């Protein structure tokens, strides 16, 4: 018996025209946490799909050896039967069913006559929930708990299947810091119980925290596997992008002018519960050429602030004043906000930012279609030209602007969203988590775009929960906690420690 629980040997997987994986070898030792790193599209997910049987045996070449035997999975049930469970980024839970029902979905706890034994279901669920450290009533519906807890339910579900190898695909992408910490600690805890796990992640600091070994994949090839004691962020990044990233943030020389936007006493309440204050008396300003950060944890009211400001697309009982260049403006509808030179790029590209079944061209023109109208009709040749210019200047990687945005990678989708807003020619851009779910190389490009916008004299507000990012690109940072601005720091005073302290500051009660 070797020490490896899993060996993937020389895995090659081709799609029509593309070699997605090329002779990839991955060895995972029993009882370790193994991280897989790589840019989006590098082949991480494909590799995991091969492993879990989503791509059945025969559609790839190479061998998978699990617990010292060669396995040939026909589908995901086969791999689960062997104890390999994959938890995808998009959670596979049914929102209207209870926690217990979800845990035992398709694995129902039966009693007499083959009917479901609810007592057993719920009591078993409680035991599993305890193992993942989730204190919730098993009859609570999934839709009533947060994403962080849903993630834990997924893990509980995996445990119910007697998992030996747990695969987590970007488990913390949608989690705040606290929930992420909990999850990472849980992984270490499960490791103590002998469960091996593979974690796919972009976040280098969490990889460093939990993993015993890191395998980096680039362009469908395994570059190297680094042992824990040799792991450094720089080395991983170098492997991922195939070159040194001397600076993770482009140089930015601020050229700050007069005030372009000022928000006074901005307050917004929860849309369904108008007594709940979500944004509480926010005052802030942005100057021309300035990049201003808003640092806040998830749920601090960042998106709520931005969306209530941008055409009141969030909240109820909204009050406060907005000034642009010293003059008061109204932003009661999205159209009004756009006409007043404000743009808001959402944190959730797929749900709120793009029409995924439509092409790049039509997405870019969407917010400023009026600019393309000639004689009452949209000039689609001009539209094509404009879209092509953005494809070039923003380096959107697609064969043509007629490609559907649903097929682009996260980074390229984000560039389309930014193109859309830049084409509307705003004076102030509010960018909500502009680099979420984007690989390192594309992040750098997005930062460069932000810099270029500031250099043109636009005011940019960047909302983010990644502190290094804010510190890396901003000129000034506000901290937000429980809907209130708790601090304002020129970049010279902004350290992660002070920011975190102000981001977690609670209301005096």
């Amino acid at each position: 018996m070797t020490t490896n629980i899993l060996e993937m040997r020389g895995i090659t997987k081709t799609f029509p025209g593309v070699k997605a994986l090329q002779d990839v070898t991955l060895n995972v030792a029993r009882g370790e946490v193994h991280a897989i790193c790589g840019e989006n599209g590098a082949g991480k997910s494909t590799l995991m799909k091969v492993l879990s049987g989503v791509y059945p045996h025969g559609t790839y070449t190479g061998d998978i050896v699990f617990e010292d035997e060669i396995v040939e999975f026909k589908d995901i049930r086969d791999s689960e039967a062997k104890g390999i469970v994959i938890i995808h980024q998009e959670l596979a839970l049914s929102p209207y069913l209870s926690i217990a029902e979800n845990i035992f979905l398709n694995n129902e706890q039966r009693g007499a006559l083959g009917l479901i034994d609810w007592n057993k279901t719920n009591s078993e669920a409680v035991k599993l929930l305890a193992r993942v450290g989730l204190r919730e009533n098993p009859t609570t519906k999934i839709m009533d708990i947060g994403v962080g807890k849903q993630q834990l339910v997924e893990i509980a579900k995996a445990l119910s299947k007697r998992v030996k190898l747990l695969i987590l695909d970007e488990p913390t992408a949608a989690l705040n810091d606290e929930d992420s910490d909990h999850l990472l600690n849980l992984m270490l805890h499960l490791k103590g119980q002998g469960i091996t796990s593979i974690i796919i992640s972009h976040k280098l600091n969490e990889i460093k925290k939990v993993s015993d070994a890191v395998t980096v994949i680039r362009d469908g090839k395994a570059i190297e596997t680094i042992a824990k004691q040799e792991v450094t962020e720089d080395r991983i990044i170098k492997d991922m992008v195939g070159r040194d990233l001397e600076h993770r943030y482009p140089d930015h020389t601020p050229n700050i002018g007069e005030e372009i936007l000022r928000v006074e006493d901005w307050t917004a309440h929860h849309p369904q519960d108008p007594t709940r204050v979500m944004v509480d008396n926010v005052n802030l300003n942005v100057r021309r050429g300035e990049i201003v950060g808003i640092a806040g944890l998830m749920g601090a009211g960042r998106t709520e602030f931005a969306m209530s400001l941008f055409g009141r697309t969030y909240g109820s009982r909204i009050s406060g004043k907005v000034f642009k260049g010293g003059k008061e403006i109204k932003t009661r509808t999205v159209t009004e906000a756009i006409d007043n030179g404000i743009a808001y790029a959402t944190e959730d590209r797929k749900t709120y930012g793009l029409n995924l079944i439509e092409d790049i061209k039509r997405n870019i023109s969407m917010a400023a279609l009026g600019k393309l109208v000639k004689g009452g009709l949209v000039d689609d040749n001009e539209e094509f030209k404009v879209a092509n210019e953005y494809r070039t200047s923003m380096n959107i990687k697609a064969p043509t602007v007629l490609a559907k945005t649903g097929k682009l990678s996260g980074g390229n989708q984000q560039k389309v969203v930014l193109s859309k807003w830049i084409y509307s020619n705003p004076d102030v851009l509010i960018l909500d988590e502009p680099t979420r779910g984007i690989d390192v190389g594309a992040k750098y490009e997005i930062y460069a775009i932000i810099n270029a916008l500031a250099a043109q004299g636009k005011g940019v507000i960047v909302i983010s929960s990644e502190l290094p990012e804010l510190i890396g690109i901003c000129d000034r940072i506000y901290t937000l906690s429980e809907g209130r601005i708790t601090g304002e720091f020129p970049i010279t005073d902004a350290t992660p420690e002070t920011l975190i302290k102000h981001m977690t500051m609670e209301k005096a009660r």
Partner: protein
Amino acid sequence: MSDLETKPASNTAAGAQVNPSNSKAGQWLSHVIADLGKNGIFVALIVVVVLFSFLTDGILLRPQNISNLIVQNGYILVLAVGMVMVIIAGHIDLSVGSVAAFVGAVSGVFAVTWGLPWWLSIILSLLVGALVGVWQGFWIAYVGIPAFIVTLAGMLIFRGLALAVLGNANIGSFPAEYRALGNGFLTDVFGEFELDPLTLGVAALAIIALIIQQVRTRRGRASYGQEVEPLVWFVGKLVLITAGIGLFAYALASYKGIPVTLIVLAVLVLVYGVIMNRSVFGRHIYAIGGNLHAAELSGVKTRNVTFWLFVNMGVLAALAGLIFTARLNLAGPKAGDGFELEAISAAFIGGAAVQGGVGTIGGAIIGGLIIGVLNNGMSIMGIGIEWQQAVKGLVLLLAVAFDVYNKRRAGGR
């Protein structure tokens, strides 16, 4: 003209680009295949037509029958135009049959009972249709009740109102000008000939206009550096379309000339085609259907668009009701029964997506024609109404299944 200059970091390929095949023949072939795929529905129509002209020993393609095909299906095609727009926006309208019946009844009151001039009756009837649309659009767009529910209610409400207006009787004998909407022909303007010269002239003009428009579009696209289809294929397609129009016009000219219904339809297809492709309103309809939230956050006034969409549907349902009433020369309580299902089928057979965001006016028209040819062909063959229903249902299912299969193969969602 771009506002932004960035120095993209090199070497960060987030995914390999797929190079299209470089060989010219390969490109040519892929173009033709892509085109056939896109126009698969058109090919399907031709297949159905050829099939039934065999099965009916050529009766299907007799001049009189071709003319009938248009006149008999005119009202469904009018409804299909409005319906596909509603479906693209991600809604549905179940009430159009009842609305058509209601407006038909109301127009009977105007034109027959009250004896108003025919043109005033038509205008007032269309206004009634618009009001129906205002009513339904209000509930859907501004109150936020799903269109399925609002128009299901509308189906009952307007059927009831139609019966109330008719008071359990038929209203009949409409003025001749009114009847022309459903039965009339533009013919013999230049005297009597074997082949109607007006029909042939109009067809010639239409062909010339089409060619000029196609060539201009192609030039325009080329001048902007957009990829255009290979010249041979472009010309070939034009020749095919020209031949199609020519044969169609020949058939009409040797029968009674141009049906008034066809003129109405042609205007609708042209106007709505331009609206859907080139107007801001049309773009907004696609945007709403593709992703409502994203459209809203891009400044699309989603509620207003939805509202006007249903007002438009109301007017088109009214128009369909008028054409149907005019054709029967009778406003009756059973009018418009099942129209909504035929119109919805036409839109889906024509390639509209159930989730919204996808569909074309042209597709819906062809979908409607396929249903029309099926109806007509099976009737000629003497197949009973029961089997006609079953076959139409099967065709709808297969058409959508084929579409789903195609998308999946293309790697869509």
